């Protein structure tokens, strides 16, 4: 094991003319500076860009003005899709205090194989690609993003950043380190493995619906 490691690294260092122990200035510098490459530009506002790209990857959205409207927006979605009044919601603080109607079955946990509808909260949105960024953790179980047929995700509009690079900066400043799983999600699951025909709902959610929260107070 250690011999293999030494053999591989030794070959690499020898070819590259490095003395194994030498401090690699260029490497340290690059890791600290984290330079960005060319950044794609667009004329629309971030919100417009996000929503246009979301639509392009077959995602849908509903706009809500305050967190008190979450239950109503979810009800509208379940009704439109003819779904039972049952969902699994992430144990996220932004979903605490939501008053779900009495008749509903709402669980606050990670998802299981037969959960039909999931609701989570995005860490941020990426305008460039219409993607949601979710960070695994006690308040954001990764299984919720993948197992349910319908994936609903709350995104405060104030948390749409231009590009993936901006999302990394936000993550570094707010969290300091990457969680176990950092998911960038762009639309519902899809496959083109049968005759290159795009079919939604391969293994992950068949539908993705964003609840865009415009209330600046979050």
């Amino acid at each position, binding site marked *: *094991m250690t011999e*293999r*490691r030494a*053999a*591989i*690294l030794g*070959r*690499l260092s020898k*070819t*590259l003319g*490095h003395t*194994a122990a030498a401090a*690699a200035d*260029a490497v340290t510098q*690059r*890791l600290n500076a*984290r330079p*960005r*490459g*060319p950044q*794609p530009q667009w004329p629309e506002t971030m919100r417009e860009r996000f929503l246009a*790209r979301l639509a392009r990857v077959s995602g849908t959205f509903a706009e809500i003005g305050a967190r008190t409207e979450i239950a109503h927006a979810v009800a509208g979605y379940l009704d439109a899709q003819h779904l039972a009044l049952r969902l699994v919601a992430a*144990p996220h603080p932004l979903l605490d205090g939501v008053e779900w109607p009495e008749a509903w079955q709402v669980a606050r*946990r*990670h998802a299981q*194989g037969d959960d039909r509808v999931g609701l989570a909260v995005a860490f941020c949105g990426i305008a460039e*690609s219409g*993607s949601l960024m979710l960070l*695994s*953790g*006690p308040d954001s179980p*990764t*299984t919720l*993003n*993948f*197992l349910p047929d319908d994936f609903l995700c709350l995104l405060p509009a104030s948390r749409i950043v231009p590009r993936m*690079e901006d999302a*990394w900066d936000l993550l570094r400043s707010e969290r300091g380190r*990457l*969680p*176990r*799983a*950092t*998911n*960038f*999600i*762009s*639309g*519902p*699951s*899809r*496959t*083109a*493995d*049968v*005759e*290159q025909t795009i*079919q939604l709902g391969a*293994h*992950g959610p068949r539908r993705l619906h964003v609840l865009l929260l415009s209330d600046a107070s979050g």
Partner: protein
Amino acid sequence: MKPTSHAFSANAHQALHDTNLQQALAKAGAGFVDKRRSAIDGLPEFEALRVSGRAIKDHALANLDHYLLRFEQQVIANGGQVHWAETPDEACAAVLDICRAAGAKVVAKGKTMVGEEIAVNEALEGAGFEVVETDLGEYIIQLAHEPPSHIIAPAVHKTRAQIAELFEHQHHQPGLTRPLETVPQIVDEARQVLREKFLAADVGITGANFLIAETGSTVIVTNEGNGDLSATLPRVHIVLASIEKVVPTLEDASLLLRLLARSATGQETTTYTTFFTGPRRADDADGPDAFHVVLVDNGRSQMLGGAYHEMLRCIRCGACLNHCPVYGAVGGHAYGWVYPGPMGAVLTPLMVGLQEGRPLPNASTLCGRCEEVCPMSIPLPKLLREHRRQEFVRRLVPPRSRWALAVWAWFARRPRHYRWSSLLAMGLLGWLAGSRGRFRSLPFAQAWTASRDLPAPQGGTFMAQWKRRTRHD
């Protein structure tokens, strides 16, 4: 998998007469090309990104030892483990050890080309584990007991009817016996069958598109979400990655991702892009308890700094396959091993030996389309020519070709003889062709003349015409 690259000629012949394959290839080819074109047209910064992307990979390769060490350090700091493997056997042994230690029975796999390279499925099955491919394309070819025929669309050679038939034979479960006709029916049935497997799996194996030195993360891109389920539901997550996948920072990966999706499927981004960083944290609601990265060399450290160094920039997008006229005509299986198309014709001889892979670099017109579309600007035709050169140097070229080349080389180095002999040959051919001016069949080239005529040379030699023209100007 035992390579059959030496039989490329016979494989290709068979492929050209396989109606199902030809039907499937015709459907796929133009789709990939058109989608890539429109995705790139939609991003004016693409060329600038391509230049920067190449620079990132060049820098990472020039410091590969340092970045691998940093990556390893960070994986360990996150609570994961790194296993180094020089050969496919060592890599498989590392995977088997982990699976045995975990007391595993079922292994769920996301798509990994390195997994194909080291034949990890055979190793796992041989040791008594149940292995389930979860990418739909990989699942289809697993059922069919076939290798992938494309690095991003493994079942591109199968028609819908073939897949429906395969499912009907394999899924003997109640409720799953209705005849499948449409694409949604096929995808739904696979979803249902594989969902059970995900939930039953003890170990999940995924590949990695990138490794991040800064954070010790491994990155996968998928559209189905199967890689994420494989990495989240089982107790143990194993990442199989080759050593050249490491890049310095998250920013570097962000840039390369813009090139990858567009070049591969013509998407702006894949549906799921995930960065895995270690095992489940103390207060996490889900995720695996253990996180292992198996770093596979398999000849790459020897490619570094050598004639094929630039091949290490490859990000496995498959654009060179999609734009290759040879791949488009014969499909991936004819190449006889894991990697097909132009990138495969460079890699296969390096990984299975030039003796076995010899026909692949020769099965190319060197038209250059692959290099044009490569997001990493890898000079694939140059690398294919290098293989041909090696083949000659190592005397692997058959005597008749060596002799013909030697004769040509003798003339090419003596311009006066060359001119005289070509004048003579032209005259002779013109006389032999007679008034018809073309040959209906030629000795030694009957396969070529079977479907076309060879026109006899007319007018003067090139040199004579050139002289005449320059005099007129």
